[in-house]
């Protein structure tokens, strides 16, 4: 089996709102897959359908070769889940919750548990009611990561963690990749996805609008070029794939569709290049492009959020 998760045309409506509108998601076994989108795009709904907590109104979903609704209990032995908003039983200690959730899944590795407690610097003796949001998140993360499972479903797992703990989280996920576990990492923190994910899917209003490796996605989009030339340039404007061209004497800035980069560079060198910087698009730019071009109305919102989280 090469696909841990596969959905086709998944539809879920909450009253008049279509939370998922024909979602096709594919996560290969053994990869860390970034599931990106702003709040309300349908990430949590998708994960809850994959967990058999919500019932899809249409389409197909397959998880670890089974039907997430029908085979929920059997499948749950093979996966671990960290909710986006972790709430715990106030009267149980963190250590008790970690052990309980691990055992309900079918067991957890005590040495991994000890190691993770140390790495995430969590005091397991405290009652859950006294934990901060970040510490509650750590409890759920440790319970999931210490479990012996094939698939991790992580819903915005770092949203309450401080930068130091976020870095620890990245180390741990890197380890997971090497141990061959599949990870579905939902996030709106793009730097995190860029650092961790083998492939990403971008969700917008309940549909996947882009999916692939970062390299593939970059290929689909534009590179920013700034050059200082020997003489004023000519012939760039009529070149296909050039956007936002600015010429200031011998200085030139433009964005270029990746397939046309080769031809553009040839024209620049023909004039004579003194200095050149070229920047591949960041995930954030990819992301913003989707949210700006498709629906200008909520682009400003999506843009702001992505900017802040950076």
């Amino acid at each position, binding site marked *: 089996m090469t696909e841990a998760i596969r959905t086709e045309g998944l539809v879920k409506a909450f009253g008049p709102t279509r939370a998922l509108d024909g979602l096709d998601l594919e996560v290969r076994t053994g990869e860390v897959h970034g599931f990106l989108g702003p709040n309300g795009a349908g990430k949590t709904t998708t994960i809850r359908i994959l967990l058999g907590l919500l019932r899809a109104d249409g389409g197909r979903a397959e998880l670890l070769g089974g039907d997430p609704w029908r085979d929920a209990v059997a499948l749950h032995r093979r996966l671990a889940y960290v909710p986006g908003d972790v709430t715990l039983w106030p009267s149980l200690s963190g250590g*008790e919750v970690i052990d309980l959730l691990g055992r309900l899944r079918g067991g957890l590795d005590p040495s991994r548990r000890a190691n993770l407690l140390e790495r995430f610097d969590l005091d397991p003796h405290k009652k859950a009611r006294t934990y901060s949001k970040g510490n509650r998140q750590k409890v759920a993360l440790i319970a999931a990561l210490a479990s012996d499972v094939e698939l991790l479903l992580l819903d915005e797992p770092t949203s309450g963690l401080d930068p130091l703990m976020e870095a620890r989280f990245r180390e741990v996920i890197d380890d997971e990749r090497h141990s061959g576990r599949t990870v579905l990492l939902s996030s709106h923190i793009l730097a995190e996805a860029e650092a961790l994910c083998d492939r990403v899917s971008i969700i917008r209003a309940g549909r996947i609008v882009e999916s692939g490796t970062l390299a593939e996605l970059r290929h689909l989009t534009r590179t920013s070029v700034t050059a200082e030339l020997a003489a004023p340039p000519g012939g760039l404007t009529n070149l296909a794939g050039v956007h936002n061209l600015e010429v200031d004497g011998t200085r030139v800035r433009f964005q270029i569709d990746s397939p046309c980069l080769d031809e553009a560079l040839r024209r620049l060198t023909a004039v004579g290049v003194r200095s050149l910087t070229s920047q591949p698009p960041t995930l954030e730019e990819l992301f913003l492009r989707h949210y700006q071009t498709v629906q200008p109305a909520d682009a400003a919102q999506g843009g702001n959020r992505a900017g802040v989280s950076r």
Partner: protein
Amino acid sequence: MSTLAGTGKLVRLILRRDRLLLALWILFLCLVLLSYPVSLREVFPTAAERQQYADNAAFIALYGRLSGTSLGEFVAWRAGFVPVMVALIGLLTVIRHTRVEEETGRRELVAATVVGRHAGLAAALLVTFGANLVLAALVALCMLSQHLPAAGSLALGLELAAAGFTFAAVGAVAAQLTTSAGGARGIAVGVLGAAWLLRVAGDASGQADGGLAWLSWLSPIDWVQRLRPYGGERWWLLVLAAGCTAALAAVAVALSARRDLGAGLLPARLGPGTAASGLRSPLALAWRLHRGLLAGWTAGFAALGAVFGALTGGIGDLQRDNPTLQDIFARLGGRAGLIDTYLAAIMGILGLIAAAYAIQATLRLRSEETGGRAEPVLATAVGRLRWAGSHLAFSVLGPAAALITAGLAGGLIYGLDTGDVGHQLPRVLAGAIVQLPAVWVLAAIAVALFGLLPRLAPATWGPLAVCLLLALVGAAVQLDQRLLDLSPFTHVPKAPGAAVAAAPLVWLAAVAVALAAGGLVGLCRRDMPATP
């Protein structure tokens, strides 16, 4: 004062959140109060009958001592347990809007706005005080409508309000002590229980040799009862209650000024770093979540059973003294003897209280769902039925444990009293156990709503309130039998006394099973968490 800034806005927030709840309990208590003059006037028309009825240990413990034999005094005496109910509602309301808000983190959100340090506490107290004054006014109007004297009617209303005031302030102090709302409720309810027991002990002693009669004066519940509505009102006792309220409120304010937001005065304890080896199933988790509730209810039922068992002998005296009353009781309760009628009536009330526990335990399912704590469990290898079953075990067996404890305690004490444990214990115990199918019907209504119409699950309290109202006032005001039949408790055999017929118990159990099954089927088909 800047520490009170924003109090008015918070008052409006509380009123917005509680508008239905406040209206319902005020209306409920008014109906209960109104039923007393309506029914007592007819059942006990003469002063002698009233005096004889009230002059026994059981009723003195429950309602206090009768100050005089006018209808007003008799009604005020009969309403002797209502101040305890008002006090309970008062303290729960205050804790609900102080410590619960802090524990859930909502208080923090509000405290960061232009709101003074004491505004939250002040708003909770003001709303509770206000609701009690409204209750006092309405009760007074209800009594006036029954042609009772104005001054006494006002005093009766204020008696209830004074109990509400004092224990609202007790709740305010308790809310400062612990970090958990459950702990605060435990402390405040404990204080109320102690106050009630002091009054019972003092009055019981006053009836006998009087050596310990002074104990009553330690109890705020006693103060308000000594106000003596319709019997030469002692208005100055209101000053005592007001002074006590003010002092307690000042203590609460002082405590709250000395602590951090979210913290309590009693330190939060650490827990174990690893789970005990038994904590490995949904049932083990449910045990952790329900055991405090189970212990509290069972202890309360043991105390109630013991008190009622101890008081049963007094009913026997009443029967010997007064043949006409014996007739009245026989008419009210069927052909059985007066004691059995009394025991069966008590068991019916215990059954209704146990139903409250059953509903509370069942609604835990819903609060686990809305609180996001069901999701992590259901994302493990735990199916929905197993998860729901782990909680339902406590809604089924918890009330059973509570009722059986009450039956055992009552039967044992009454048996020791009559020197016939072997005969009385099984009879009283059976009276407690026959309530269970009716209790389970209420729990099953909660399960059905939870599975099929999850957002309406808390509405299960409605049917319980209807059952309670039908039981308390239905027989007295002679409601239509078809209306009375709506309550599952109407169909419970009146044991001990009447022969226990199996058919109604089987029917009630079948209704409970059908409702619960429907709810569980709904649960397995619906979204978790339910669509908002």
